[in-house]
């Protein structure tokens, strides 16, 4: 899976983030994407090959694996990371639109320094504040939804060693053994913990932005 494209896109967004946003991005890249690519993909690499059932019935193993693992953890985490990163694109689009507007005004004859336009740090206020805040809100929602989906789909966060399966064409209830359950449980809990940390960071960022704007408003009125 090529995460380089995501890295390139999010790197651009990073310039316009708050400090907490930058920390969130670092945590995302190092503790989630990197762990996924370097470690977790190998742990789940042989999940179907080494899923062994106590039966000689052809097809039973396939059906049982499919029944217990509708979507592999790896793919679910990849989807989670993509969904969680996507709201940042809204911010990138808004910033690009603002810059485009300024360039258009410059071309129409207004006096704007072109160098200043390129290097300008865009402050998070006005409509950009709303875009940024809603992107953080959606990030939090997506994180929570995926954490719940994991819990619902796999009945908690622990990988069982033994599962009992009686799907057709298995002739009776067969014992099936999952490959590397302890290691998988370790990584599931690790990824869950990091999701929790990311959610805390997003909540902190949201509070920071709201408090900042409230203070600014109160300063204007006094």
């Amino acid at each position, binding site marked *: 899976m090529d*995460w380089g494209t995501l*890295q*390139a896109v*999010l*790197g*651009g967004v*990073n*310039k316009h*983030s708050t*400090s907490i946003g*930058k*920390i969130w*991005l*670092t945590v995302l*890249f*190092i*503790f989630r*994407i*990197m*762990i996924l*690519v*370097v*470690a977790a993909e*190998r*742990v789940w690499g*042989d999940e179907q*090959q*080494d899923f*062994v*059932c*106590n*039966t000689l019935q052809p097809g039973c193993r396939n059906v049982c694996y499919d029944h217990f693992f509708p979507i592999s953890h790896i793919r679910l985490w990849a989807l989670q990371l993509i969904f969680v990163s996507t709201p940042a694109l809204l911010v990138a689009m808004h910033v690009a639109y603002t810059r485009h507007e300024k360039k258009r005004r410059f071309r129409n004859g207004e006096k704007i320094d072109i*160098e200043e336009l*390129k*290097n300008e740090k865009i402050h998070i206020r006005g409509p950009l504040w709303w875009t940024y805040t809603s992107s953080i809100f959606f990030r939090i929602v997506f994180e929570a939804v995926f954490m719940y989906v994991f819990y619902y789909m796999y009945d908690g966060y622990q990988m069982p*060693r*033994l599962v009992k399966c009686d799907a057709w064409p298995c002739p009776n209830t067969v*014992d*099936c*053994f*999952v*490959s*590397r*359950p*302890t*290691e998988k449980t*370790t*990584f599931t809990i*690790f990824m869950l913990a990091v999701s929790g940390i990311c959610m805390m960071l997003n909540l902190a960022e949201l509070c920071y932005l709201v408090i900042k704007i409230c203070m600014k408003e109160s300063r204007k009125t006094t």
Partner: protein
Amino acid sequence: MGEWSFLGDFLEKVHKHSTVVGKVWLTVLFIFRMLVLGTAAESSWGDEQSDFMCDTQQPGCENVCYDKAFPISHVRFWVLQIIFVSTPSLVYMGHAMHTVRMEEKRKMKEAELEAREKKNGGDAYYQQKCSLAEKEAKLSGWDEAGGQIILRGSLLNTYVYSILIRTAMEVAFIVGQYVLYGIFLETLYICQRAPCPHPVNCYVSRPTEKNVFIVFMLAVAVLSLFLSLAELYHLGWKKAKERCSRSYKASPSTVPSRLESAPQAERAQMYTPPPDFNQCLSSPNGKFISPFSNKMASQQNTANFATERVHGQEDAAGEGPFIKSSYAESPEVASECAAPAFPENYFNDKRRFSKASRASSKARSDDLSV
């Protein structure tokens, strides 16, 4: 190694702001841990489960025995070790970048203030503000003259804490590895776990090759630990030496000799032996602009370094032999980057003339005439 590029990019930024021992530690991390793990150890452990053979036909017995023998694979354990050991450096890096950004903001405000004061003509007020600002800068750990980050105050504390946490993590993982697996892997593992009907013999794949890598990675971990401890000692010793030299500061006879030796000492510490990991911050292939990239700051620092070298020698009286880590970009890198666009009056040095600058602007009798 490409998969490690996420972490690698961040750590290369840390490399610039570290002490000499810190740079050696980072080099050890990159070459002996990340590279070896990514290229050699991964392929050695590649068939660890498929070639884990148990002396039984019972379905599921091999799975459960492998799970009991290796709750977490060595390779994954080392990946987590590298990540947790690198994390404190990132925290220090965040603080360093924060310092740089605060310094930039302060300079911008100063430039604005200069322009405003020039209009109003309040010279005395400006000088007072300037000296106050320099005092602030000294407290924050920023060397006005050299354009460098000096490890002092809160930044030094963060650096020391990061090394302490790194050391603790290193020890924790070494002990953890010993508790989980001991030192060496045995060829034979006897397993008794449901659904295995009785204790079965299980055979580990490639035990000798794995033992070689286990011993190697353990040795590198111990070496990293030793380097961290050496760095702590180095920092502590420097701090104690600085305290002693401050107590002798009053005597004027020692000041000129320290001024002379300080630049040489600075130069010796700035030229670091490990390989140069500097990269242009804006590379043409659209590389990731990390949270810690600060193109403006580094380019300003190159300019600062060039124009204010004289002030550095003059102001060195109060500094003492602190650890200096060079923040300025190397010249060949700066040439690849686009030239920064500064406002017109940015380079006009409006501060009071120092003796040195006054002297340099006049032609001297012993100057060569063309």
